[in-house]
């Protein structure tokens, strides 16, 4: 791992050379030998690992998709093929070295155990496939610690900041990133486990007891939590920064959060977002700025990010919209090469120095949408329509008259062969006229998503909060596809 202070100020050309060098070594010395999946693929497709001289040659390697990694009923151990692990033959060789060496044999073995033995596990959330484990070795945990500290560096958080971690506890990257960051920085922190674990009211008590300057949340829960805090007239005046992770953060929501925090006594709060993938094993932070979003700052010594055309898979140029493709660099444990994340970056990647902080590391756009939320609908009898459900998020989250919302996709008469229907459940602000709001929502939804909702249902807040699973689920259920399969 490189020194972040130096790396983040290194001209991009040199960063690129470093990435080429590291990628070459990683593919030849680790992936092609110790990763069962990739060594098999390379053998089968007759790919010469030495042909990969740098990032430009990545195109010779095939993409990896979620379904290549995710375990299924036939192959529940499939994920293990992505773990970098010296096979028995290699272990035997090291064991042999160790036996021959009287003085350094033990150290050599310890080094290999440090490099390759898994000690920590995260899982994917399993929304589109079975949860997939991603393992970390001790070496990887050090990488995770370092990357988490880099995140705090980008966010300008120091050891004196008091943090409340409201991410739901789970073997997921989000919670553990905050843990390792705070632990490495020795910054005071309360890892609450979220509202599901300690309860919203007790979490508010903890805020008033600790008076944190930083709070870390899933966006939807944060909005709910702060609204409840306003109702209870709590004092959160100590908060200076809020970080979001685990879900997208529409700009409208950031404004709503700031407004709520103002009512709780916290002025001028910076609302920032973390972008993380279980597969990338780290989270990237957005540069703090009140006015503009300058993108997520990457760690070029730990990964290579490509932006490709989601249809053709062709690599795209700087600033072009496309799918994020991730390649591990210098990791052990579970490693993926050219992994299609299914996330679309609007504005792609930028290699220019950040206009806000001056760091020279590549940045991916702050606007990230999920490809899996482009769904095909049969709204009429004539043809299927591809609808970008991502567009509901900025629209609903930023709507000043709404407290909560949920979209349900269902089939008319619950018949798998009938037409699709979209139901929108909302809780409006108390003094808003229902008729006007319905008209406004219908008009805006057609404009943003090009479909019209079948019905808008007004629900009391507590019912919708429970329907969303705000205090019971790891992530709230904003878009629910209840269509029966035929």
């Amino acid at each position, binding site marked *: 791992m490189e020194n972040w202070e130096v790396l983040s100020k290194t001209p991009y050309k040199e960063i690129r050379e470093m990435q080429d060098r590291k990628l070459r070594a990683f593919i030849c010395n680790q992936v092609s030998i110790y990763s069962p999946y990739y060594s098999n693929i390379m053998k089968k497709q007759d790919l010469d690992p030495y042909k990969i001289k740098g990032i430009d040659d990545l195109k010779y390697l095939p993409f990896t998709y979620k379904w290549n990694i995710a375990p299924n009923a036939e192959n529940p151990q499939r994920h293990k093929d992505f773990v970098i692990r010296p096979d028995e033959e290699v272990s035997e060789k090291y064991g042999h070295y160790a036996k021959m060496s009287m003085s350094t044999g033990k150290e050599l073995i310890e080094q290999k155990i440090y490099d390759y033995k898994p000690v920590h596990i995260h899982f994917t959330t399993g929304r589109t496939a079975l949860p997939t484990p991603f393992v970390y070795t001790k070496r990887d945990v050090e990488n995770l610690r370092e990357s988490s500290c880099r995140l705090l560096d980008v966010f300008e958080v120091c050891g004196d900041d008091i943090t409340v971690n409201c991410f*739901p506890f789970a073997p997921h990257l989000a919670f553990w990133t905050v843990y390792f960051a705070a632990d490495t920085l*020795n910054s005071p922190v309360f890892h609450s486990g979220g509202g599901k674990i300690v309860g919203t009211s007790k979490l508010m008590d903890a805020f008033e007891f600790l008076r944190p300057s930083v709070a870390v949340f899933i966006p939807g829960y944060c909005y709910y939590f702060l609204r409840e805090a306003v109702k209870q007239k709590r004092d959160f005046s100590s908060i200076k920064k809020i970080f979001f992770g685990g879900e997208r953060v529409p700009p409208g929501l950031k404004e709503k959060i700031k407004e709520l925090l103002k009512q709780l006594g916290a002025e001028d709060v910076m609302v920032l977002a973390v972008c993380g993938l279980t597969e990338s094993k780290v989270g990237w932070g957005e540069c703090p700025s009140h006015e503009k979003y300058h993108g997520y700052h990457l760690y070029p010594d730990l990964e290579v990010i490509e932006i490709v055309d989601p249809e053709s898979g062709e690599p795209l140029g700087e600033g072009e919209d496309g799918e994020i493709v991730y390649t591990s660099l210098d990791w052990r444990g579970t490693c993926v090469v050219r992994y299609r994340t299914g996330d679309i970056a609007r504005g792609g990647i930028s290699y220019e120095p950040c206009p806000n902080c001056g760091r020279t590391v590549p940045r991916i756009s702050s606007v990230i949408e999920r490809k899996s939320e482009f769904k095909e609908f049969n709204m009429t009898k004539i043809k299927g329509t591809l609808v970008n459900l991502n567009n509901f998020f900025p629209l609903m989250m930023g709507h000043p008259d709404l407290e909560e919302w949920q979209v349900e996709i269902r089939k008319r008469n619950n018949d798998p062969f009938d037409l699709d229907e979209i139901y929108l459940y909302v809780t409006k602000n108390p003094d808003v006229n229902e008729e006007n709001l319905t008209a406004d929502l219908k008009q805006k939804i057609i404009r943003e998503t090009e479909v019209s909702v079948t019905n808008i249902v007004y629900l009391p807040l507590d019912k919708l909060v429970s329907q969303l699973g705000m205090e019971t689920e790891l992530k709230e259920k904003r878009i629910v596809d209840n269509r029966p399969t035929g």
Partner: protein
Amino acid sequence: MLDWSKISRMPANNIKKLQDELLCKILQDELMINHPYYSNLFKSEGLDPNAITGRRDLDRIPFTSKQDMLSSEYDPERAKQFILQKPEGLESAPKPKKFALLGRKCTVPDPAEYRMSQLFYTKGNDLDPIPISYTRHDLNNLKETGTRLCDILNLKRDDTILNAFSYAPHISVWQLFHAAMTLGSTALHSGGGRVLGMEKIILAMNNMGAPVLTSHPLFIMATLQTMLRQNTDAPSLERVIIGMDYAPMVVVEDIQDLMLRCKAANNLVQRVYFLSMAKAGFAECSPGFGYHLNPDHVLVEVINPQTGESLGEGESGEIVITNLDCRGTLVLRFRTGDLTTEGLSSEPCPNCGRTVPRLIGDIEHRHDNYDLVNEKRSIAFNGNALRRYMIGRRDVLAWYVEIVSEKGNDTLNLTFKPAGGINEEELAATLQKDIQEEHRLKVTIKKGSYEAITKIMGLESGLSVKQIFDLRQ
């Protein structure tokens, strides 16, 4: 903390001497100057910390109870009174002297030692959870006590651990996290039933081939029973580590039996007693040989729960602890509300030979004992005895009991689900007869579904399981 290999073999007298020294040190160097609650208490009680020369003078210090630490409307930050503050005027870390003679150690403390690093809470079974502040010093001790735990449990780096303790900002999950990380074992910290759910934990255990499973006892029992019902074997499972809840020997035997029936590779069951205020968990090397303490970290006394008098070795009573080496939240003579059935022993462990003091027998909870009224007579209802009796019955799958008041008489409403193939009517009659005779209370027996009972118990949703509910006004 001292070197474990030395302290775990130190003669009992030397351990006692060491504890006297540590007690005097913490009283004189820290508590009187930097502890808001105890410096006030000592002043108001006219106590001279220099007069406390060791364990023999401990009874001059008043007890601290959970109530003393609870926040109220008038004192919402009460728990902060128990957090050790950094010495006045100590703003930055002392610079190491370049030419210190004979490598003399710097005696000025580092202020960072006093800064909170993490906040945990007590379990909050009987009262509201109390925040417990950990500093870097405490987290280092947590790693050390975790390493000791692994040593006592004989856990090795090659053991893959599935940590299924329910997640909470509580010592149990974090002690095991630090233990596994320091040991270098492959570990999945699942968050238990309330995070992953039982089904996924079973799947993870078999997919990982984990030989070690940790959780609270009833969750483990329910998991193994579920596996039996589903005809799922646990071929990789070798040992189960239980804690966080009532775990008498009868539970150990039940789990051992279930492990065998699930075709586990081995059926070793070990118990750990996690104590929030002690900032550590204490393990048994083998069931029945006692929970091995960390005498350089915490001083444990056993007292008569009624009179508060200190008891001798082997006498059952309430566990009282005094922190000897910690920062952050620090307590003296804290009444834990936990009862040891066979008291304290400073004899070397007959199983492993370690010489550290041990808490022998089962750990019971004082809050599970109730003063009830039946026909104008006061009756001491021992909920721990009821739990032991019910857990020991292999014909009962799940149960809970409610204490209700009817026309001035307190009665028990027991809801249960029998195991498969058991005559429900006969069992209900037996339970009613046995409990009525033992506890001299009227008992009403109801049958319930397994799902409904386990939901009320909080088997998958709570930090630990609750089986006795006091519904009296």
